């Protein structure tokens, strides 16, 4: 639907106002001249309140995530590409090929259109690069002070890969725990630009779409039992979740866990544990120990997995504890973080 608009959308100095969410011409213009133009594909072009898609073969997978990151722009990415990667990854770690995304925006009155345009362009680029189109969307505007710039919820649909059965409940004692690269880059990149913490660091978010890496891994190692992206709560939360779902324990080897020096240093300064810090482009894979080397080789052969390593093993433990042999030579638990990762002084 192409409407004649009296003024072009002012992507340089304009701002979101309530009319952009009111269902009138201003909203139609925002959708046409920004969202549809950037994200454009045959499905979005249908112009209805939803997308008509082809039939797809195989069992479906569906995942959704709200993205509320602050600040909206951070080293290595922004809320736009993050919202594409995050949901693609949640679909992919179910052992599925991500096919379509839906994107819903909550915009705060006063948001500069220039910023929104950057975000949408970044989403579009991420979706294009991943080959997963945004097929339908929604835009709401709330009063200033009732949101935080932009919230983006993306929902992904995909089809499960044949012969693959991965789930957080599938880990078995003896399995190997692998990770595709260094941990915590994303979370620490965000903290480095938080107003009240700001420090300078050579840290960029690891945000990336993992479905290609996962496809390669599963092709080489279809016996992988668990896939998970260690986002909120970091490796610690993710492994505790898996331990609980599977009813097992996990023992990590601290010396093997990859953390970049700058991330480790920032954690020291802030009193945080890198195992609690989110990644957005890293993969945890758990597979039978016998297949671990083949799986690692497949991960390392992909550009997003060059630093893949084995970091631990699954054990039988009714208490479902995640433990770690420390580099120092001792042993400790790796528990869920209580509350939010707040910088400490003591």
């Amino acid at each position, binding site marked *: 639907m192409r409407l004649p608009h009296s003024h072009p959308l002012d992507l340089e100095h304009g701002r979101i106002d309530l009319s952009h969410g009111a269902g009138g011409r201003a909203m139609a213009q925002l959708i046409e001249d920004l969202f549809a133009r950037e994200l454009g594909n045959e499905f979005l072009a249908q112009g209805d309140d939803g997308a008509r898609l082809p039939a797809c073969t195989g069992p479906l997978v569906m995942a959704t995530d709200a993205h509320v990151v602050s600040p909206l722009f951070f080293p290595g990415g922004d809320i736009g590409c993050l919202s594409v990667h995050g949901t693609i990854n949640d679909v992919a770690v179910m052992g599925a090929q991500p096919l379509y995304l839906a994107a819903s925006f909550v915009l705060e009155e006063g948001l500069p259109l220039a910023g929104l345009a950057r975000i949408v362009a970044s989403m579009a680029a991420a979706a294009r690069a991943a080959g997963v189109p945004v097929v339908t969307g929604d835009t709401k505007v709330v009063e200033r002070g009732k949101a935080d710039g932009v919230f983006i919820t993306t929902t992904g649909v995909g089809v499960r890969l044949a012969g693959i059965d991965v789930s957080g409940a599938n880990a078995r*004692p003896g399995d190997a725990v692998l990770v595709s690269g260094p941990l915590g880059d994303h979370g620490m990149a965000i903290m480095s630009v938080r107003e*009240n*913490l700001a420090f300078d660091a050579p840290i960029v978010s690891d945000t990336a779409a993992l479905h290609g890496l996962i496809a390669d891994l599963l092709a080489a190692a279809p016996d992988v039992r668990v896939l998970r992206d260690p986002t909120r709560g970091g490796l610690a939360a993710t492994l505790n979740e898996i331990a609980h779902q599977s009813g097992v*324990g996990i*023992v990590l080897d601290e*010396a093997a866990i990859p953390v970049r*020096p700058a991330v*480790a*240093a920032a954690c*020291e300064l*802030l*009193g945080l544990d890198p195992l609690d810090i989110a990644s957005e482009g890293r993969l945890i894979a758990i597979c039978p120990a016998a297949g671990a080397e083949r799986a690692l080789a497949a991960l390392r052969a992909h550009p997003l997995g060059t630093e893949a390593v084995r970091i631990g093993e699954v*054990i*039988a*433990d*009714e*208490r479902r*504890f995640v*433990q770690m*042999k*420390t*580099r*120092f*030579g*001792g*042993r*400790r*638990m790796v*528990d869920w973080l*209580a*509350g939010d990762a*707040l*910088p*400490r*002084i*003591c």
Partner: protein
Amino acid sequence: MKYVDDFRDGTVARALGAAIRAGARPDREYRLMEFCGGHTHAISRYGIADLLPPQVRLVHGPGCPVCVLPVGRIDQAIRLALEHGVILCTYGDTLRVPASGRLSLLRAKGRGADVRMVYSPLDALQVARANPAREVVFLAIGFETTTPPTAVAVKQARAEGLGNFSLLCNHVLTPAAMHAILAAPGGVRLDGFVGPAHVSTVIGSAPYEPFARDHGKPVVIAGFEPLDVMRAIQMLIRQIDDGRAEVENEFTRAVTAEGNRKAQALVAEVFELRDAFEWRGLGTVPASALRLRPAFAGFDAEARFAVPAVPVPDHRACECAAILRGEKRPQECRIFGTACTPDNPVGSCMVSSEGACAAHYTYGRFRVEAAPTETTRT
């Protein structure tokens, strides 16, 4: 990290552990109190206990400023924010400390209190500058390490004439607390102290002399890295076995006998001794805390706002007091790990990861809960 990773070296640690095992007498127990939460945290995080012989028993002391802060002081801060509408600035550490009425500063924030986490007291000044129409209160906690930065901030506020800035002062003194532990009626049996690292950079090693001299307790000042702690334990075992009681300094790279005179002068200019102060676990301890000098009274939130600190009894089952005095271990508390967890702390030792209970829950409870199939000792 230079001068950090070096002191975390596992190979040296294993050999040092062997040396300690070789050097310690098998026929006796060494009860050593690490006063500082920083040491408690290092012991747990690096699994130091696994490298020590069983006859070395580490007793966690009260050196975590969050853990010793009485509920009434957090209540004060919450009232300032909720009832007086101030912007309450504080370190991330204090946000989750349980207060009365199931509140905490974080929960008060959810009820509309304007609570802001700061990384430095200078950030609180910045908040005051940016909000000239609002009252900004900095909830200051900490031992001697953290006090001089607060003093700098207060002096800066006066220099700038920042009339909307004030301080809710909870700065406390290490030697007074150590004295209280030793003076406790029927107190703990202790064979020596692992002395504070960063507190000592400021106050120096001299203030510990009375504990060695008068109480006959060896003190070894140690850095917060795990090799520092192990070396200090080795030095303490030697003193004990030698029958000595001296103040020794393992942390020579940062601690001198006289400490940081400039920092001491800053503190002396801005603060003066309180007659007494309530400590969680230790009760009211004379001359154990600081308040603003009269010259800075205008920056004292307690004077500016009518929020008396009302003492609040601890939860009936809570053993924090005994734990902070080194008399009990976390797992001896009836509600440890059940009603009291880091997610829903009842006592303050469960709040900070430096608290004895939280450290044990987060890092160490696999040692005492029913063993897994695989053996947990490597």
